[in-house]
């Protein structure tokens, strides 16, 4: 019976169920892929743990596989954000249904359980679909190439208990998230009351960003001090510090966007002369968190992309410095200079960029759902405004202001914070190898100093990521403007 209640809904409920199932399927695929990578058996070859049956070194080298698995798990973050956005889709219709359940005698807890069951069931179906795609994918992509090697680890299956935990765990997680999202909602027989945060955001997010950047900036001098004093580096502690710093700047950037949205709203309200600006300003002030919530995954993707572009340009500079050093070394020794093959590392960075692009696309999905929801949930109000003569263009411009203001500010903040974090951790200066190089005789030795270079700022890559993120927001905005047209049809006055 609970199942029947959970799935009894309107068209928007069906869309929400489908979207939730889709995000659960994506999350299942990402986690199963990570588990598969971790389950690859290795053989010892020349002192290295390798799996020679794979073509891609990122999978073949055991040392690199943890990073691949971590990237795959990180991909579930935008997927989970997408799931969160889906859970909000069609909320007014679901709220009315839940209120009807309360009217029919269901207690507040029972109504919440019904909503959570809906999310869990949809996610369960999605997780099963994800498992199905995974198992079919193994068969379809399982044949080796002409070199006899596999492109993907399709010959490995994680233990069955791990598969079961993923397929059962994702629906449970989805149910718990749904209950968490309903924590500010009071379900009564007469309707649904949302407890909203009325206090404007404070600039504390800035402290989080500064704290994260400060922690990162301390690590480099601390490392130098420990090495100089002959002590060993506490790698675990340093790893934890980097993680905390990254988390602090990410949370700071996302919540900081809420504060920026509020401040921008206030400024816009002060100086706006036309209705579109006024409407957008008041909406930004009334709920500045909407912007940061909907943009969270996109901002996180931009932030990590900025870090990745900083790491990449630093590595390229390092390779260039090393190449220069070895060229001088070859000149000195008279041996031929053989340039180092860096294609593997560049390939690895290409894969990171690919993963970030996938994260951007998934984040775009979440953003589209959020934008659609913001229009659909207020379609009666919008239709009434159009009926009283407010041109749709004014509502469109208000939506554009309201969407682009936090987006532009947040994306720029994420890019700047990301690159600053990377620079704080590694610094801008790179040094090549150095050592004593001898010529024809052992008496003809000199110390070849290291080549010191400064890694430039990755302005091109940064501009590319910022541009792609803004293009994504702009495209989705245009799509949502089409939805605005149908949502302001006069029929909404009768049916909404």
């Amino acid at each position: 019976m609970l199942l029947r209640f959970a799935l009894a809904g309107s068209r928007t409920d069906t869309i929400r169920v489908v979207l939730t199932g889709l995000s659960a399927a994506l999350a299942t695929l990402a986690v199963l892929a990570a588990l598969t990578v971790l389950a690859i058996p290795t053989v010892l070859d020349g002192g290295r743990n390798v799996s020679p049956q794979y073509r891609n070194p990122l999978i073949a080298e055991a040392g690199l596989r943890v990073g691949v698995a971590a990237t795959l798990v990180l991909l579930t973050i935008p997927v989970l954000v997408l799931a969160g956005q889906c859970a909000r889709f069609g909320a007014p219709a679901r709220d009315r249904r839940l209120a009807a359940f309360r009217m029919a005698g269901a207690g507040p807890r029972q109504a919440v359980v019904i909503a959570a069951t809906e999310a869990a069931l949809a996610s369960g179906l999605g997780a099963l679909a994800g498992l199905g795609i995974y198992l079919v994918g193994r068969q379809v992509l399982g044949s080796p190439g002409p070199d006899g090697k596999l492109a993907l680890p399709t010959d490995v299956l994680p233990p069955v208990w791990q598969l079961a935990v993923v397929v059962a765990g994702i629906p449970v997680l989805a149910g718990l998230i749904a209950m968490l999202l309903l924590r500010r909602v009071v379900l009564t027989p007469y309707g649904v009351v949302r407890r909203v945060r009325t206090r404007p955001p404070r600039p504390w997010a800035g402290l989080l960003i500064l704290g994260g950047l400060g922690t990162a900036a301390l690590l480099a001098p601390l490392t130098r001090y420990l090495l100089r004093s002959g002590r060993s580096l506490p790698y675990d502690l340093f790893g934890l510090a980097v993680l905390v710093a990254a988390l602090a700047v990410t949370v700071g950037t996302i919540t900081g966007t809420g504060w920026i949205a509020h401040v921008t709203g206030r400024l816009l309200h002060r100086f706006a002369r036309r209705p579109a600006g006024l409407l957008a300003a008041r909406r930004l002030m009334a709920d500045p968190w909407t912007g940061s919530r909907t943009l969270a995954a996109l901002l996180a993707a931009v932030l990590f992309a900025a870090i990745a572009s900083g790491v990449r340009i630093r590595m390229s500079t390092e390779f260039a410095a090393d190449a220069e050093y070895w060229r001088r070394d070859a000149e000195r020794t008279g041996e031929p200079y053989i340039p180092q093959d860096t294609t593997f590392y560049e390939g690895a960075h290409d894969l990171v960029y690919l993963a970030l692009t996938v994260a951007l696309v998934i984040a775009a999905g979440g953003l589209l759902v959020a934008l659609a929801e913001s229009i659909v949930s207020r379609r009666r109000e919008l239709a009434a405004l159009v009926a009283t003569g407010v041109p749709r263009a004014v509502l469109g411009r208000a939506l554009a202001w309201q969407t682009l203001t936090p987006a532009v500010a947040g994306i720029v903040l994420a890019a700047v914070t990301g690159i600053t974090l990377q620079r704080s951790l590694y610094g801008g200066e790179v040094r090549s190898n150095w050592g004593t190089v001898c010529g024809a005789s052992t008496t003809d030795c000199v110390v070849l100093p290291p080549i010191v270079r400064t890694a430039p700022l990755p302005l091109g890559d940064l501009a590319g990521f910022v541009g792609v993120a803004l293009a994504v927001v702009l495209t989705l905005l245009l799509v949502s403007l089409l939805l605005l047209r149908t949502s302001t049809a006069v029929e909404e006055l009768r049916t909404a």
Partner: protein
Amino acid sequence: MSFLGTRAAVKSYGPTPALRGVTVDVAEGEILAVTGPSGCGKSTLLHCLAGIMPVDAGEVFYRGRRIDTTSEEERARLRRTEFGVLFQFGQLVAELTAAENVALPLLLAGARRRDARTAALAWLDRLGVADLADQRPGTMSGGQQQRCALARALVTEPRVLFADEPTGALDTLAGEQVLGQLVRLAREQRTTVVLVTHDARVAGYADREVTLRDGVVDPTGLGIAAVRR
């Protein structure tokens, strides 16, 4: 040709007919109540008269000009400048204050923000809710919200006010107050009012009543207010 009206107006929602050849005339300065049971086509008639919705067949005219053949932009301009529209609920922008909601039509018409606010405050004062000027709709009662909505509908001093069940969501006392103010202000400004209601008490405020049944005008002329009298 009268000030405002329809000739043989037909409107359907898919296979369901809402208006089946309705002819209505409204004189300038008149307060007309459109009454009838639920689903008889009252709101549809109001939407067609206000140019919110086009008719499928027939004519809609205003001041000697057909408005059913004009573009959506032109009809929207008409609603912004010549007409005021008042619904049952859900028409105020939740994030704007009462004064900003009332000022909105003036801003759309190109007024300066300060001037629009001054006019909005004056209208809120006339409707007895000046103290709510800086409050948002969510913190007001239904009656207070409806008075703000009435102020917004009248702030451009429209020639015609369309009111669709304006007191339908209010208790008796609040409903009487809103309606009393609506009628008083309309008479003061000689505003023509088309009032859709199924409530005999509300219809009793009108100069004349037109009753619809199953999408056509009741030929007996016996409206609910007339029966009540």
